[in-house]
């Protein structure tokens, strides 16, 4: 027994100690499931800075932020990317970031810098969360027209056509909920129809609730190439149609999907990166933040994550210019207002929609 015990304990000890052994030439990026970037850009980062980049996907944006708040001071990695303006205040209140003002911030429009005083987070990209539609479905004879406003979705003609994401587990889901609050008013609104009335009607109209964006878009939406989804309307991004064209096996004659970008239908989402407090490689983390604002990274994002660069000089790919219209009048809510009400909104939404 004793002879067995010592090697056993040693091997467990090793197992425990190994992951803790820090390598100071590695920068770990903690991010959400939808993060993607070209291999060549990763190589360029390694060549330019000498750091090896490791990518850790922790779940959807909400879970990513919660997990980081729970492990504040003892983080999973060095840099967190993927906290957006709907979760920003929670992350900032959780005290998980070290301030860092990248020199490249000079070029970023001020409207995107939501923590300009302290620079705990750095804006990296933005995009509009919008409804996407399956063009083929709506072109068919007998199909209703593409809805142009959020109101239209409660029309029985669109019954069973829409998939949205659960706002508690998905950031586009939360963003879309915000858009409906901006459009129809909070529940304490006294002038009649509130966002909860809208959602009640939507639930009666057989809306499908997905846990996250990937399931909604690739699992349920009928417009995404090569999947068996059955619903022609989904909450996604204004730029998603560009992805469908870009990844199509042969250039499609007509655009397979479109985004509905009418006034008041889209929510502008800004994604940030920040250096996690407790990192053992602060220099590497700063190098990564700087790198994320270089043209190499900024110009690679659109076709990988289908978001817009925050650096105005970054060249936008042609397919974006051809297929994407950003909303003229996107909705945005003040992060402090969001933070004060987020839980109540989700709670009310859950009670209304999932009853």
């Amino acid at each position, binding site marked *: 027994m004793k002879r067995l015990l010592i090697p056993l304990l040693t091997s*467990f000890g090793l197992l425990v100690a190994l992951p803790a052994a820090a390598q100071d030439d590695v920068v770990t990026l903690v991010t959400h499931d939808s993060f*993607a970037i070209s291999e060549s850009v990763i190589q360029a980062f390694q060549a330019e800075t000498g750091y090896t980049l490791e990518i850790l996907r922790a779940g959807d944006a909400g879970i990513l932020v919660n997990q980081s708040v*729970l492990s504040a001071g003892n983080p999973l990695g060095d840099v967190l990317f993927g906290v957006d303006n709907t979760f920003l205040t929670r992350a900032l209140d959780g005290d998980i970031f070290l301030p860092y003002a990248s020199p490249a911030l000079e070029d970023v429009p001020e409207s995107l810098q939501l923590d300009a005083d302290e620079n705990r987070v750095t804006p990296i990209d933005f995009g509009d969360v919008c409804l996407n539609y399956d063009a083929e479905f709506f072109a068919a004879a007998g199909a209703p027209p593409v809805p142009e406003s959020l109101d239209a979705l409660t029309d029985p003609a669109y019954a069973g056509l829409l998939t949205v994401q659960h706002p508690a587990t998905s950031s586009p889901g939360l963003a879309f909920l915000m858009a409906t609050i901006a459009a129809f008013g909070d529940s304490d609104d006294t002038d009649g129809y509130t966002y909860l009335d809208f959602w009640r009607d939507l639930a009666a109209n057989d809306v499908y609730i997905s846990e996250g964006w990937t399931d909604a878009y690739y*699992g349920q939406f009928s417009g995404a190439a090569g999947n068996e989804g059955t619903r022609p309307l989904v909450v996604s991004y204004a730029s998603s149609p560009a992805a469908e064209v870009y990844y199509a096996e042969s250039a499609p004659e007509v655009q397979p999907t479109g985004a509905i970008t009418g006034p008041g239908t889209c929510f502008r989402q800004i994604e940030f990166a920040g250096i996690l407090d407790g990192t053992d490689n602060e220099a590497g983390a700063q190098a990564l933040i700087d790198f994320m604002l270089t043209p190499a990274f900024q110009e690679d994002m659109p076709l990988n994550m289908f978001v817009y660069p925050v650096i105005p000089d970054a060249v936008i790919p042609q397919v974006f210019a051809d297929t994407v219209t950003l909303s003229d009048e996107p909705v945005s809510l003040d992060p402090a207002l969001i933070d004060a009400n987020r839980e109540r909104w989700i709670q009310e939404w859950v009670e209304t929609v999932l009853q």
Partner: protein
Amino acid sequence: MGRNSSAIRRRLSQAAFGAALAAPLLFLLAFFVNPLASIFGVSFIRADGGLDLSGFLNIASSSYYRNILAFTAVQAVISTAVTMAIAVPCALVFARYQFRGKSTLLSLATLPFVLPPVVVAAAFIALLGERGLVNDMLLAIGASDDALLRIERTFGLILLAHVFYNVPVALRILVAFLANQSGTPEEAGRMLGANRRQVFRFISVPLLRPALLSAALIVFIFCFSSFGIVLILGGPQFATLEVEIYRQAAGIFNLPLAGALAVVQLGAMLLAMSAYLASTRRTAALYSGKRAARPIRTVRDRIAVACAVVLLGILLFTPLAAILIRAISPDGTVTLRYFALLAQVPRASVLAVPAVQTIGTSLVIACVAAILSVGLGTALSLLIRQTSGRLGRLVDTVTMLPLATSAVTLGFGFIIALSRPPLDLRSSFWMIPIAHTLIGLPFVVRSVLPSLQSIPRSINEAALLLGARPAQRVLYVDIPLVRRALLVGAAFAFTTSLGEFGAGLFLARPNTPTISTAIYRFLGQPGINNYGQAYALSAMLLLVCLLCFLLIERFRPADASEL
């Protein structure tokens, strides 16, 4: 001088022995009482120290939470009723008739008990999902040109999975009870002129009642605290208390509300658990003896046995077959591609590591959890045997408490209790193994304690007379005598840890996912690669569990208690 030093040595050895016995109590204090206290803390106490009942008020005032409570209870009642409706007739058939393959089928029927919830959920999606095998078959024979069976995300699918899980549990309890119940009362009734129906109605049923109650209660407990099945098969529309605790804590981050829900869950489980323990005390056979099963004679016998065997066969083995089929053929063509994919990290994979690595992670965790559970469980069992009367019963009950505390509650408690000094384990490897140790502990004690208690006192007294010290008596007398029970307890703890999901979901870090959390991530992502990998991984986990199960069956003492 010599006498003195030997007395000191004896005293020292006694102190060491006492410390060894106290270790499990300290362990329970740090890793069980402490997290639970933290949950009470976040649910009752505001940041400024005042009393906070907002979480409870929220639950009481909102119809949403009342509905969740109601759903949790109602689904558990329905699941229990359907389970018993299948298990009772089958148990009667198994107890009455002797037929070939009976004992094999009976022990195979316990298999679901060791299967991870993620695997069971995956199995039902593979079998009855919209793109499942049954729909494929219906399409193939042209019964329909669209998926005919649409029960994904309905209560029906949850119910089926609960029945699959629990029929074996009820069956095993009932058959064991019936087999040890003497047939004398029934024979006496017949001799006194009662007909068959009267005997059944007035003698058999009342005699069976305590066992029925205890089986129904344990099934109710399992269904009431169901997590993985409801989370995966139910979709966002369905939530048991367990699922809602997870959503509130991990998704919405409303810790006071999650804490309040956990307190409610804990209270309900304690009630059910004490009712169950009380009921098991009454199942000690009234008229114990062996009932001889009779061979099949008439056509009626034959039909009864055939029905029971076919029903159990379909219920238990089609979902498992569905997993294996989907693992090698997720989309109709036979391929081993998805097993190969497990060794890679495909671009944009939801896992940061090759999926095959999660098997290693889970095996190491399960080994550590099994070793810790056996060590602590043995010490606790010795302690319970040593302390007689009320104190012993108290320790006994405390040991069973982790069984009443759901894994989700435990995971949640760990997250909030063990992430700050003096016990900061957040980034440590130990979080999950320790949680799994707590979950495995009751199994080990249930297995070891009866064996320890059955050791005749005279053997220990003989050892004492021959001059053996307490530690020597334990090492050289008790442990060798209960080694089979130890092995069974270890295998149970190992298997439970391997498939554990609720605590793992809270505690696993993205760079070291467990096999269950990996399957869950794959199942939640669309696309054939994720689907294929989910089933390839499920099949591998299924096979490992099968091996553990065979080990348990091989070494289980014939008279071991059922839980």
